[in-house]
Each structure stands twice: as structure tokens, then as C-alpha cells.
């Protein structure tokens, strides 16, 4: 792969990708929170979880439990923008690949973004369950067993750190691995 052109393309792609991400972030935050809330409601009866905008600013949300006493309803806060900032990397990496027609680059980016949406919804879900299972002291111990506490704790840790940070690389490698490691018969030709 022509690395110098890849780098040049990456720099060129970074600015428009960042602009689009900044522009769409408020809208995407609301979509993510609403989707995750719906997913959470599938796992609880009655629907007690609410993700409410926080006063800190755009992207900050409060995890609210409507069945708790008013003074204790806000159980945790979450910055949703942190969950999807890796889209900057994803977009720039996918658009920068040299020697691939634009149509295919955009098509691959579309698939990658679709996968990313599901990943983000799952990550918000795990953040909320992590807060319930491990951050509420005796209430957590009372309502979540040892397995559930470890599952949601480790799940949130792995999704929020390694898998979120490596997500652009994983998807990029999934679509463009052959540019780096040609199949043996192609390399030998």
C-alpha cells in the first residue's frame, strides 16, 4: 500500500470528517440515548431508567432511576460524546485508503458506520448496567449477583477501553486487510 499517499489522504480527510462529526454529534447523542433507553426498557419491568440531559453541557447525560426516592434518582452521569469520538478515526481511515474507488470507500464506510451504531448502543447499555451493578453500594449488592457484577463491570471495561479504542482498526483491517497482507499467490506473482 502506498503509505505516503495514505497519510496525505488521511490529513485531507481529517478536517471534513471532524467537521461532519462535530455538526452531527448533538443529533447523534440524542439518537444514541433514545435507542439505548429503549434497549434498557426491554430488560426492565416497569420502565424505570431514564437518560436525561445534564446541565454540564452537550453530550453529558444523567442516568436516572424513576423508582428511587427523588433525592437519589440520579445515580450516575455519562458523557455520550466520549462513546463515539472514535468515529473521527474511523471516518478518516476509511476515506484515506488509496487506490480504492470512491464508491467502494464510501460503501465500506457506510457498513462500518452501521456496525458502529450498534456498538455505541451496546456500550451505553453496558455503561448503565455497570452503574447499576457496581456503583450503587448495598443496592447493587442486593439486586445483582457476583456473576452479573463481574459481567457488567468487565464488559463495560472491555467495550469502553480496548474495543472502543481498537474499533476503527478492527473495522479497517476487516475491510482492507488484503492491502497490507496480500494473499500468498498475489504476493508471489
Amino acid at each position, binding site marked *: *500500500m502506498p*503509505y505516503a499517499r*495514505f*497519510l496525505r489522504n*488521511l490529513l485531507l480527510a481529517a478536517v471534513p470528517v471532524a467537521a461532519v462529526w462535530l455538526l452531527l454529534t448533538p443529533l447523534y447523542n440524542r439518537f444514541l440515548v433514545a435507542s439505548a433507553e429503549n434497549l434498557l426498557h426491554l430488560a426492565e419491568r416497569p420502565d424505570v431508567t431514564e437518560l436525561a440531559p445534564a446541565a454540564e453541557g452537550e453530550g453529558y447525560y444523567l442516568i436516572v432511576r424513576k423508582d428511587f426516592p427523588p433525592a437519589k434518582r440520579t445515580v450516575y452521569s455519562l*458523557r455520550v*460524546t*466520549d462513546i463515539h*469520538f*472514535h468515529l*473521527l*478515526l474511523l471516518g*478518516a*481511515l476509511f476515506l484515506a485508503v488509496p487506490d480504492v474507488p470512491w464508491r467502494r470507500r464510501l460503501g465500506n464506510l457506510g457498513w462500518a458506520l452501521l456496525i458502529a451504531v450498534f456498538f455505541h448502543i451496546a456500550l451505553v447499555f453496558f455503561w448503565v448496567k455497570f452503574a447499576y451493578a457496581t456503583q450503587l453500594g448495598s443496592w447493587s449488592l442486593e439486586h445483582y449477583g457476583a456473576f452479573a457484577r463481574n459481567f457488567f463491570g*468487565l464488559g463495560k*471495561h*472491555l467495550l469502553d*477501553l*480496548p*474495543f472502543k*479504542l*481498537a474499533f*476503527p*482498526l*478492527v473495522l*479497517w*483491517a*476487516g475491510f482492507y*486487510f*488484503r*492491502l*497490507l*497482507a*496480500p*494473499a*500468498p*499467490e*498475489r*504476493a*508471489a*506473482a
Partner: protein
Amino acid sequence: MARKTSQHSPAAGDGRRPPGRRREIVFLVVFLVLLGVSFTAISLQPVNDRVIEPFTAGIARVSGATLNLMGQGITMRGTIIENHRFAVNIRNGCNGVETMLIFISAVLAFPATWAARGAGLVLGILAIQVVNLLRVVALFLTGAYFPKLFDASHTVIWQTVVILFGVLLWIFWASRFAAPRAARAEPA
């Protein structure tokens, strides 16, 4: 009806995937497993206490010394770097370990000779730590002189820069050093 097969199309009838796809899947599975195992390992208390915390303290000391060279009048308190303008606590997440583990996992999962892997790991880890040092220094200066920009710089900009650097380093290593050797080593 018989289908014509070639080296570049899926092998029909024998149920095997084409070699390229199989290599991608093997890479991704090994990469994700290494990633999961390594991040689980560093989340264990003994590993955190005996490896990650001392390493993070080392990063803080080097960052503080670098800032002192720039005339910032830094004093250190454990992993806290401070002067009369600003103070920052270097914690897990600020030590470059995440990027290092992603890079190490990707290098180990990629089909390459062990010599290419070894050289890639040593030089890559050093390069990531240099960029991470730049991040800590730049973040401290941002906090000291442009405090309103600190939050976005910390969580979005520098995080993206350091991870992107690790990814680009791996792509560079894989395309320039690892892939050609791996291709030569495999029979045609």
C-alpha cells in the same frame, strides 16, 4: 453444474474460504482475543498495583522533568504534576498503555516473521511513549494557559491523536516490513 475455480475466487465445492478471507478472520480473532486478555490482565488489582501504577508514576516523573526543562517550575506529588497555574494527575488512560496494548496485539496477530514482530514492537512502543509524553506535556500546557480547551483536548483530541498514531504505526509496519517478508516466506 460445475463451477470454474481460480486462485482468486472461493474454492467451490470443498467448502473452504478463499485464503485472503481466512487470513483476515484469523488476524481479527487473534487480535481481539489478545486485546481482551491483555486489558483484562491490566484490570486485575495485583497487575495494576505492581506494573501499571509504577509505570504511570514513571511517565509522570518524565513528563514533570520535561515540563521543568521548559521552565514550568513543576513540583511532583506522586503522580500529580503541578505548578502555580495548574495541576494534573497522571492516571491510567494517560500512560499510553492502551495504545501500546492495541499496537502489541495487532503486531502479534499479523502474519509476519518473529524478527519483524520484535523490531516492530520495540520501536513501536518507544514511538508511542514519545507521542504520549508529547500528549501529557501538551495537555498540561493547555490546562495552564487555555483551561477552557482542556476537557475537549483531554478526552477527544489527544486520545484520538495517540490512538491514530498507534494505528498508523501498525499500518506502516505491516505494509513496509511485515507483509513483504511474510509473503516471501510463504510458498507461491
